[in-house]
């Protein structure tokens, strides 16, 4: 998997992850009435996150910042599950929990490795990561109620 070291590569990668995951939530939501509202909200939040991180980057990007060297040991290896219409609610929730944990871990790592070098971007990543943490709890609650 690709190692991300530059700000441009990380922003593009996160953008793809957020948007692909938004689409997946919409597909899952349309397949399961029970998940529709929560997953629609997740999809909307993903698109907002995509804009939020991208905007932070485009606002602070500068020839003086270490944009080419700000990330370390960061691998673009999050696997987004394929949508399967036949998956049960419980399967979907488990997949979503796993996915969210992976994305959250990526945000945490990205924020930590760039904290001193990339001004506002790690701050936004922290915020997204905190929201993701809450989302995992929400998904776990949904999973428990689905049992």
């Amino acid at each position, binding site marked *: 998997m*690709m*190692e*991300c*070291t*530059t*700000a*441009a*590569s990380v922003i*593009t990668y996160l953008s793809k992850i957020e948007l692909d995951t938004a689409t997946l939530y919409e597909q899952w939501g349309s397949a399961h009435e029970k998940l529709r509202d929560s997953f629609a909200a997740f999809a909307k939040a993903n698109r907002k996150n995509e804009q939020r991180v991208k905007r932070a980057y*485009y*606002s*602070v*990007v*500068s*020839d*003086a*910042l*270490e*944009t*080419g*060297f*700000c990330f*370390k040991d960061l691998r673009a290896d999050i696997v987004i599950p394929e949508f399967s219409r036949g998956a049960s609610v419980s399967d979907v929730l488990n997949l979503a929990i796993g996915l969210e944990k992976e994305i959250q871990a990526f945000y945490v790592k990205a924020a930590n490795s760039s904290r*001193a*070098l990339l001004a506002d971007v790690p701050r936004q990543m922290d915020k997204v990561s905190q929201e993701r943490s809450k989302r995992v709890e929400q998904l776990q609650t949904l999973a428990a109620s689905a049992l």
Partner: protein
Amino acid sequence: MEFGRVKNFVEGEWVDSEAKETWQIRNPALDIVIGEVPMSTDAEVDAAVRSAKAAFSDWRRTPPVTRARYLHRLIQLLEEHFEEMSVVQTKEHGKTIDESRGETRRGIENCEVAAGIPSLMMGDSLQDIASGIDEYVIREPLGVFACIPPFNFPFMVPLWFLPYAIATGNTFVVKPSPNDPISQVKLHELIEETGIPEGVVNIVHGGVKVAERLMKHEDVKGVTFVGSTPVARIVYRTCGETGKRVIAQGGAKNFLVVMPDADLDFTVASMMTSFYGNAGQRCLSGANAVIVGKDDGFYKKFAEAFVEAARKIKVGNGLDEGIQMGPLQSKDKKERVVGYIEKGLAEGAKLALDGRKIRLEGNLPDTCFLNPSVFVDVGQQMTIAREEIFGPVACLMRAENMDQAIEMIHASPFGNAASIYTANGGWAREFEYKVHAGNIGVNIGIVAPMAFFPFSGMKDSFFGITHGQGKDAVRFFTETKVVIRRWY
């Protein structure tokens, strides 16, 4: 040719130059021709200046708040075309897309600051300097200004000046670098789209002859130049002889001082950008890293970490978002850097990392590429420690203490930037206080002033009085008129 033959922009029209002599504009990463730039004739230079002069009278009468609105519109257009502007810079210069976006953002920031001109341009007044008599000072524009920017920041550097010049009511002629003039053409297409009156901004393409004609032109009131020190001296002298205002920014040899308490990981990461960002082609680049202390272990550890980080830098086409360093802007510039590496070796410096051994990401011609080089145990008298290399070459040196490091800095004729890496506030303050350089960094590798601060420089790095950007630029582009008034 992707961009064809670029045109001059005069009296609000894009016009073909009649010049027979042209330069190729090359994409240095792909080593292909992407455009052609004419070496405009004397008559064409004169026409550009005439256009600016004719526009001045109406433009200076345009209220500052109205002039600022053109800049607001330009900012909006630049945001809409942000990516397009950035990609052009990478294509014509070779820098990475992150770096080009950084350049675009810096350019926009200068427009944003200059858009505050109704406040920035205000004068001062005092009632009753004597009973019943008031005195005030107003700032007035001067007329036509010319800009001669360098190749290393083809989009941004003219924007250190242009927004302030026009916001204050002057008119402007830019002669872009013939190496990479396309981003200026794109910028002026957007300026044209703002609806700005004809002749307020103009482009005339060319090389040295065009620059000389602008500098000597009797209708040009001032010149801004950014480039090498020898040329900056000529610009300063020529403009002085013809009574012009001038900002002439020259070369640099920037020292980055590493104190024994510096955080190694952070310092090395920050220094990679400083030494190798823009392939080392910037006047704020780190050139000499001075590691302070008698501890051989610390020096060795730092040098190893530095070389290892430099070795890992991904070099390739800047349009690939994973690339950390692009090519030099041209084959000539690469050869010049190689010449310095050879000189360093001949003078006994130890080359710990040889950037002449090209390792590229992707299948690219190596015509303009070098990988990062690191010289260790560099002596202060060596050519590579003294002269501006303007490429991806780092010189690691040692000093016993901070005072010795500062002496080394002061021995250099340049004074553009200097940085210290430390956790000790006392050391940082001493450094900031003592060092004779225009831009001082504390745990900062590239001390690039924001648009609302002047882009400083001292000694052989700057010739002039006021600087580009912010309030300094407003002062440069205006002259003060004092009025003393009483009524019967």
